[in-house]
Structures are given as structure tokens and as C-alpha cells.
């Protein structure tokens, strides 16, 4: 594998090999699966966000390693119970979203690097770039909202793909918004983006957007359908959205279990959305009898 041409990925590989050698093969696997284009994209991502700040990159890799270990241990427990460990949103909010150390040292770097290192996350990203964004280019879209921005990754993708669009990002976590600000700034898109710390369930914003993005938020909620209805209000008539959820994918802050794409589709439709396309991506080929996490994706439209 020609990592000499991709120095930032080489650094990730070196850090993984030292600290988490059992994860080190992930780069080879993704390269075999997705090829040179994946290497080029991932290297560019790392170069822009981390630059020559090796300690920060190493810290992010360490965070990813712990995040991945956590997820996989929970997956093993899920294999036996086929239920998420019961928890309340308020507890998760306290333990995760309002915990700066956890967010910056493990959660956010883990999620960010997983966009390229986890097969189903990268496939979802590819679908976003080559299907959803292409649909947007055929429509008139001046502004988008990203609800539950997390690392800011998908907001960055929107701003990157559509040079004129403006965006608004919502999240309940000040640390997610802080990370998103860093992300948007690194990519030099600050002039086209607003940051809003808000829970749209408590107060749905009045300004509608031409399109919306909501990636892996629903599984964090007690009541995803109410949230989806709030998203519906946020989207202008005729606008389209990209809504995803984790399926059979336990995590420290996953509360609501989607067992299949059908569960997600039913809830999205119940909120009023028309589903234009939907797809599910599996994380890996599981051993017989084991569960496997997957990503469910719906491209939706609000009827005119």
C-alpha cells in the first residue's frame, strides 16, 4: 500500500500500530475496499484539520482507539441482549455531551476518524457526496441547517460541495459546536456559517432552510418521532434532507434502538416526509450469530 504518498495517513497508521496494533489493519482493509480515492480523500481531510500538529493527531488517534474499543465491547454485549443498555437522555447528556474531557479526548475524535475508518460510515459519506449533494445541485438551495452537528463534519461537506450555500448548525453540546467551529475554520468556511446551541425540540427555530442534514442523531433521543416532526417544520416546502440513524449499533450515548432500515423509514414517514431514496450500509461481515452495526440513510422531501 503506497502510504509514502499519503504522509498523514502514514502517521495515523504508525500511531495505531504502537497503541492499538489490533486496529492497525483497518487502513489496509479500507484501501482494499475503496482504493486510491479513499487514500487521497482521507489524507486531505487529515492534512487540513491537523496539519503538522502531530500531538493533536496522536491524541485524536488515541481517542479513536478508545472510542472503537468502547463501541466493539458494547456490540459484544448487544449480541447477547439485543437491546441497548437502558439509559435516560438526561444522564447521557451529563455524561457525554456536557463532559468536555470525554467529548474532546474520545467522542469527537472517534467519530471524526470513523468517517473514513469505518466502512459503513465511509459508504454513507460517499452516498452523501455523490447522491444527495448531486440532487441539491439540481435544485435552488441557498441555505441548509445541520441539526446535531457533532464534529461539524457534514456541515463542512455541505459548505465544501456547494460554494454559495450558507449553513446553520444546531447542537445541544457546546463542545460539539466548539469542534465544529474549529472544523469550519480550518476549511475556511466561517463566513458562510452560524452556530446555534439549541435543542430544537424545546424551541423549533422559525427560520426554515432549503435543505437539512441530520446525521446519527435519532438514536440518541428518547422520542425520535417528535424530533423528526421538528425537523419537518425546519425544512421549507419542497426542500430535501439527508437523515441517518445507527441501526443495531450500541454506543455510550445510544438510547433508541433501530433494528432495521424499515424502523427508520416508518418513523421518517410518520413525521410527514416523503422518502425519495433509502439505503442501509453494514459495518462489516459479522460472524454467524453476531450482530453488526449499520447506518440507515433516508433522502427525504417535504411536500410542497
Amino acid at each position: 500500500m503506497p502510504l509514502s504518498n499519503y504522509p498523514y495517513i502514514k502517521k495515523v497508521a504508525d500511531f495505531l500500530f504502537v497503541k492499538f496494533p489490533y486496529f492497525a489493519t483497518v487502513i489496509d482493509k479500507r484501501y482494499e475496499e475503496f482504493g486510491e480515492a479513499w487514500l487521497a480523500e482521507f489524507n486531505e481531510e487529515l492534512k487540513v484539520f491537523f496539519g503538522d500538529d502531530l500531538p493533536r493527531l496522536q491524541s485524536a488517534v488515541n481517542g479513536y482507539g478508545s472510542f472503537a474499543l468502547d463501541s466493539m465491547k458494547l456490540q459484544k454485549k448487544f449480541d447477547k441482549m439485543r437491546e441497548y443498555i437502558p439509559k435516560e437522555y438526561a444522564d447521557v447528556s451529563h455524561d457525554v455531551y456536557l463532559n468536555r474531557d470525554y467529548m474532546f479526548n474520545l467522542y469527537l475524535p472517534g467519530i471524526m476518524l470513523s468517517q473514513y475508518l469505518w466502512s459503513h460510515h465511509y459508504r454513507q459519506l460517499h452516498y452523501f457526496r455523490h447522491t444527495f449533494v448531486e440532487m441539491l445541485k439540481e435544485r435552488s438551495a441557498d441555505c441548509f441547517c445541520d441539526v446535531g452537528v457533532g464534529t461539524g463534519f457534514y456541515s463542512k461537506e455541505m459548505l465544501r460541495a456547494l460554494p454559495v450555500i450558507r449553513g446553520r448548525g444546531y447542537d445541544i453540546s457546546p463542545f460539539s459546536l466548539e469542534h465544529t467551529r474549529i472544523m469550519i475554520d480550518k476549511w475556511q468556511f466561517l463566513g458562510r456559517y452560524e452556530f446555534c446551541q439549541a435543542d430544537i425540540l424545546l424551541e423549533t427555530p422559525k427560520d426554515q432552510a432549503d435543505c437539512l442534514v441530520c446525521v446519527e442523531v435519532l438514536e440518541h433521543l428518547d422520542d425520535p418521532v417528535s424530533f423528526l416532526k421538528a425537523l419537518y417544520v425546519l425544512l421549507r416546502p419542497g426542500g430535501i434532507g439527508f437523515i441517518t440513524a445507527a441501526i443495531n449499533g450500541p454506543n455510550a450515548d445510544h438510547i433508541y434502538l433501530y433494528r432495521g432500515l424499515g424502523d427508520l423509514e416508518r418513523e421518517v414517514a410518520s413525521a410527514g416526509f416523503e422518502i425519495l431514496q433509502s439505503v442501509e450500509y453494514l459495518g462489516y461481515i459479522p460472524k454467524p450469530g453476531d450482530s453488526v452495526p449499520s447506518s440507515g440513510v433516508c433522502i427525504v422531501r417535504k411536500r410542497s
Partner: protein
Amino acid sequence: MTEQEVIDRLAPIFHDIFNPDVVVTEDLDATKVPEWDSLNHISLIVAIEGEFQCELITEEVAQIQNVGDLIKLLRVKTSKLTGFQEENP
């Protein structure tokens, strides 16, 4: 529990998850066993938790670099379970 006792209990787990020819020594790590990938690593951790009746939290698992680290951790964990202090852990 002595180091050798821990190794004797780990060996069948390693043989089952990786391959029967793996020789379990303190310096054994994931770089030396081709089958030791992420999925098998988690299977290993879960099997060890079952065998030794203890939980290995993520922070502890993240610090394990080789079997020697694992042995030290398990000796501490099992001494807490039995209530006896290990001599020379």
C-alpha cells in the same frame, strides 16, 4: 494467583480465538499474531472477562500493550475479587 497460573488459564482462550499454535508469553502482542485483529481482540477480552469473572473497562483495555500487561491487570483484578493482596504483583 501466580503469573503462570494466569498464563495457563489464558492459553486455551488464545488457542480458541487465534490458533492452537500460539505460544502465550508475556511479550506476545497483536503484532506477532496474524489473526489478532480488532474483532478477535474484543472476542479475546470478552472471553477473558468470562474466564476470570471480572470486567475490563475500556480505559484498562486501551493500556494493554502485550500479554504481560494483561497478566498484571488480571492479577490485580483477581486479588481484589479474592480479597488477598498479591505478593510481588
